[in-house]
């Protein structure tokens, strides 16, 4: 019997591998963005691509997000499949018109005649002291605006499969990677940010949630880095006899409402964990989905644990106070269980 050694990759390497394989397969795929060439992307999502594919297909840009994301829209319409990186999601405000009024709407406005197959990649998330303009997640805000798919992976395996699916999708996809899931050497390590990733290309369907841990007592619905925090909390809860199911939405648009409802039908209790701002966002949408689909199956009112409605503070004790954490998740789960 041969010993199978599994290939381990960080999430950032899984993403860049997915992009590289699509670039090999399809000459219409190319990448644009700030510092995505020599630097390999500030968060490593494009590492190695310049060396492999050269500057015509891996293009460093000026700090002109409106121009280059808009250029991606035009290139997509004219037959290319661009990937454009917005370095931090926090910068959306300088180029949102291209994203939500153009990239996301042209297919609809054209009555389906014009396709805009492109991916906007962007880094989200805080927890490392980067302050109010570099630490937001904002996926809830993007998901509110129709016409683009919103992908928010949590693991290396998902990241690669969802990236390949995003590139092959004929629709615009915003692919949001949390800095804390990337497995970067210089970020607080997250043990699950390095994991087995198959070498061959594969896709994960966009719009399907994934049960990252099964459980019978309550459902924890979340995305991205908070999946890991929830899994950690679930470990703690298990020692107390509470079995939490952890549902990773993986994408907010499409939102896998069936999966949310199915899990709640089983556990009868739901806790939503959200690193995005609390109000008018994901937490409310997930809870409302449950109310619409499983009201009569609830044994307790749904609960949310989210970032408070404050700009992200810089100082560590302040930021820690705001961020959902393993302990806060476990505490909220206990409360939901009436313990």
């Amino acid at each position, binding site marked *: 019997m041969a010993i199978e050694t599994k290939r381990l990759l960080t999430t950032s390497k899984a993403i860049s591998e997915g992009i590289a394989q699509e670039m090999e397969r399809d000459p219409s795929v190319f990448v644009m963005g700030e510092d995505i060439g020599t630097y390999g992307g500030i968060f490593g999502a494009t590492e190695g691509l310049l060396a492999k594919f050269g500057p015509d297909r891996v293009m460093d840009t000026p700090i002109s997000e*409106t*121009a280059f994301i808009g*250029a991606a829209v035009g290139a997509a319409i*004219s037959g290319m499949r*661009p990937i454009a990186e917005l370095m931090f999601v926090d910068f959306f405000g300088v180029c949102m018109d291209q994203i939500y009024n153009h990239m996301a709407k042209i297919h609809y406005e054209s009555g389906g*005649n014009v396709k805009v197959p492109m991916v906007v990649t962007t880094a989200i998330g805080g927890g490392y002291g980067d302050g109010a303009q570099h630490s937001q997640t904002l996926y809830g805000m993007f998901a509110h605006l129709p016409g683009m798919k919103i992908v928010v992976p949590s693991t290396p395996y998902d990241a690669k499969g969802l990236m390949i699916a995003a590139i092959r999708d004929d629709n615009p996809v915003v692919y949001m990677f949390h800095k804390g899931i990337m497995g970067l050497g210089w970020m607080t390590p997250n043990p699950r940010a390095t994991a087995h990733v198959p070498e061959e290309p594969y896709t994960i369907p966009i719009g399907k949630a994934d049960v990252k841990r099964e459980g019978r007592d309550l459902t924890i619905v979340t995305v991205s880095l908070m999946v890991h925090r929830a899994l950690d909390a679930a470990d703690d809860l298990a020692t107390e006899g509470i079995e939490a199911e952890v549902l990773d939405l993986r994408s907010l648009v499409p939102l896998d409402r069936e999966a949310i409802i199915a899990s709640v039908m089983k556990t009868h209790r739901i806790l939503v964990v959200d690193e995005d701002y609390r109000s008018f966002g994901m937490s409310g949408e997930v809870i409302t989905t449950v109310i619409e689909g499983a009201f009569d199956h609830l044994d307790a009112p749904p609960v949310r644990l989210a970032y408070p409605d404050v700009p992200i503070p810089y100082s560590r004790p302040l930021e820690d106070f705001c961020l959902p954490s393993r302990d806060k998740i476990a505490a909220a789960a206990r409360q939901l269980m009436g313990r």
Partner: protein
Amino acid sequence: MPDNKTLRDMHYEMIRIRLFEETIQKVYFEGKTPAFDIAAGTVPGEMHLSAGQEPVAVGVAAHLRPSDAVTATHRPHHIALAHGMDIRKLAAEIFGKETGLGHGKGGHMHLFDPATNFGCSGIIAEGMPTAVGHALAFKKQGKDDIAVSFFGEGAANQGAFHESLNLAALWQLGVVFVCEDNAWAISVPKDKATAIANNSDRAAAYGIPGVLVPDNDPIAIYEAAGEAVSRARRGGGPSLIEVKTDRLFGHFEGDAQAYRTKEELALLQERDAIRAFERRLIESADLTASDAQNAWTRARAEVDEAIDFARSSPYPEPSAALQHVFA
């Protein structure tokens, strides 16, 4: 100098556009009198017509092929028609009909035509980056197609203008940027908005050619565009062309234009570029008076047929609203 056929084509095209716009104006007011209600009538919503700006559209479009990409603004009809958009589909889209270019989903500010690689946007200057992207795609694909981006003088103070010109110049892309300077951005005159007199001078900020066409003359525009288009086609990079043109109507239909004097409006009518061009062609014997008359008649018929088509077409099914969010 355009050859005789081109001159005659340009003449016809300007007339066709003018008659289209005048007809849409009439249609637009159907159901909106005596009390004007923007939501009522055959055609609801804002309506930005381009009468007076035909020379810019036809002077540039004379150099283009259907595979060249064109992006336009909230005031797109003249450019769409000059670039070859199907006039019936355009009319039907304005009527919100199933037979329209976007099956009624887009409307007059959101026209997307794969057949002529045309797109437009109601957001000022935000069609410009898209044009840069088309040209980028053509370069990657090894094509000598080019992209043309039309925008108003008001748009030239928007950030997207600056970023787009820099990017196109940096990457030496085949884009022709055409500024339609009609002196007004809704009610704001250019000198209350732009720190310098001529936007063509801004080309220096990107190291690209900047050409000023100081009057609304289709031939001068044709000449300037010809050079810019062939430069773009042969890989020589982008150019900026600025044309001083005229907006004969209000900013949108229903605009009382309290901000313009009667004298200004009268002057614009007087120097109407179509009539001037027609006189000139007749004088130079490029056109006979009866050919000229003929052009108006033919164009009238073409426009009427398109309007009839639009009018008699069915509306989309209401629930179709939920389709086409995703491909």
